[in-house]
């Protein structure tokens, strides 16, 4: 019984991290109908970028998040404006193939620059300390921080979508870019902001993932698949749905890992396939 509670708690906390992976993917798919295949690889890139201030300037990894998030926002905006906007049209194929190409470039570029040794960020005692709820159940302080940050960021992002002008532009462009254009919303700029926002969020996820475990240039695809699964499990059009999907994925992986190493990831995949089989629109789909 205690094992079950323990597994669920750790799974939920892991889900908080996966939500950080997934929210950005959910936003770009929602606005542009394009799945960014390089999503995971950009996450790894953010972690490698943070490595520089952390090792050379002795910056705390938590502090390093701030400049890297800003940098990644700019990168996302630029990538969309310079590369992806050229390929956007009626067909999803061209932009997705472009992101596919970028993922291969990034993975091999990082490999070339940093080689395949695994890296991670050290945060001292905070990484191992935990809060004891009962004698047997303990919650790691760092996973709890990640979970709280994740909740706050999802909350802020949904506020951005519902209460700001740029959020309104994002929603309008998502519904119908041409009509939005007639209202003076420039689709190309809005797409840039969407990818920038997505990159800013994935940067947080990438750095947290680098604190939690290690990363290599090859870590990207796995993160992309987790993010994707969380989005599909949660259902389209709802950020909290994606968050819930990430938590379900985290719990599934935690439960699967009880059966042996490697089964965690498989259990996550199977839950994803089960959702697809029985509720293909996702568990928390919000109909517009």
């Amino acid at each position: 019984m205690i094992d079950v509670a323990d597994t669920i708690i750790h799974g939920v906390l892991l889900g908080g991290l996966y939500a950080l992976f997934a929210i950005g993917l959910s936003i770009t798919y929602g606005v542009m109908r394009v799945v960014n295949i390089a999503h995971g690889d950009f996450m790894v890139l953010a972690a490698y970028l943070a490595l520089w201030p952390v090792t050379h300037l002795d910056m705390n990894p938590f502090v390093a998040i701030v400049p890297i998030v800003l940098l990644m926002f700019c990168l996302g905006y630029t990538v969309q404006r310079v590369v992806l906007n050229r390929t956007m049209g009626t067909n999803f194929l061209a932009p997705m193939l472009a992101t596919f190409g970028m993922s291969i470039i990034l993975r091999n570029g990082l490999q070339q620059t940093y080689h395949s040794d695994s890296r991670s960020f050290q945060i001292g005692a905070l990484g191992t300390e935990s809060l004891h709820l009962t004698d047997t159940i303990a919650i790691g302080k760092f996973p709890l921080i990640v979970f709280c940050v994740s909740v706050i960021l999802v909350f802020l992002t949904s506020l951005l979508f519902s209460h700001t002008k740029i959020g309104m532009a994002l929603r309008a462009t998502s519904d119908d870019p041409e009509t939005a254009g007639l209202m003076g919303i420039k689709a190309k700029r809005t797409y840039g902001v969407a990818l920038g926002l997505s990159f800013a969020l994935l940067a947080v996820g990438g750095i947290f993932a680098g604190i939690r475990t290690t990363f290599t240039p090859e870590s990207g695809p796995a993160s992309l698949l987790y993010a994707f699964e969380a989005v599909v499990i949660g259902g389209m059009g709802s950020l909290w749905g994606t968050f819930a999907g990430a938590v379900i994925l985290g719990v599934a992986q935690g439960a699967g890992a009880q059966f042996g190493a490697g089964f965690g990831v498989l259990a996550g995949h199977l839950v994803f396939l089960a959702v697809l089989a029985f509720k293909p629109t996702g568990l928390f789909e919000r109909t517009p």
Partner: protein
Amino acid sequence: MRDSLSYVVSRNTALSNAAVWAGVVAAIIVVAVPWLPYVGTFGFMRWAVEVMCYLVLAQMWNLMAGYGGLMSVGMQAFVGVGGYSVIIFAQHLGVHPFLAIPIAGAMAALAAAITAPLVFRMRGGYFAIGTWVLAEVFRIAFSNVSLLGGGSGQSLTVMSRIDRNTREVAIYLIAATTLIVASAVINLLLRSRFGLGLTALRDSEAAAESQGVDVRMLKFQVYTLASFGAGLVGAIYYTSILRLSPSAAFDPNWVVASIFIVVIGGIGTVEGPIVGTVIFFSLRWALADYGTWYWLVMGTVAVITIMFAPAGVWGFARARWDLQLLPLQRRLTLKSAADASAPKPSQFVSPSNLES
């Protein structure tokens, strides 16, 4: 209808007639390689088997994405199933290895047919990543079967019973036959109702459906057919290199290569994968000593192609010089009585427009 206007719909051009004959000659030469001097060596034939495997896989990917609008990032699932089927049937069930190769194709098609209802619940971009998840599930599943060597895989020791010369020549000929049959089948299919439906599906799923195209059935057929081809590729390739492991069999690089070949060569054209394969292997040869630089250059070339020449090298050349090697497009040539002698620019009618 004005009487002075008459027109001719033709598919064949002088160039395309020549190209078909050139294709036949090329096919004969490819089949004759084992008996030719200089090239009929084991080394060359092994290399040629690899090239042909990549080309067939690229053709299959192109059939799905370029014509059917189904972008798969998980085709390695069926390459792997094909490879493992050879191990299962030849090594563990005692079927002759060369007979096991077509069986492997059938197993891959079966695996595709069984999983199709699941992956077709996703569309567009979701379908792409969903097929990747499926390939990962296959990889993890096969790594946990200890009979098949678990995570470290197995060697095809059964092949040692066949003497080396027979083995190398036979695998080469099987690969060559697969390539020739696949090319012919794809070309004939695209000229048929099936091909028209497929192109209509790519251009607009809703419009195709409204014209009476059975979209679900068509997607299922093209997915299963392409998976059959991928299974054959896996079976041939791993019978050639004699060793297979889950991480190699289900390696996403299979699909990475296919996508780059098709994108650079020209997506949605039959000639594109051939042009792309030539470029792919030339670049690989040129950058052989530079490790990961090869993929970096390949990725960059692919992204630049998508940005500036979305129809690929072949598509660009075709539009520029009005080329058509394989007779797929119908051309409408207008002939008015007044200036029948004057050369008229031929007008393109793409198959998708023809139906409207």
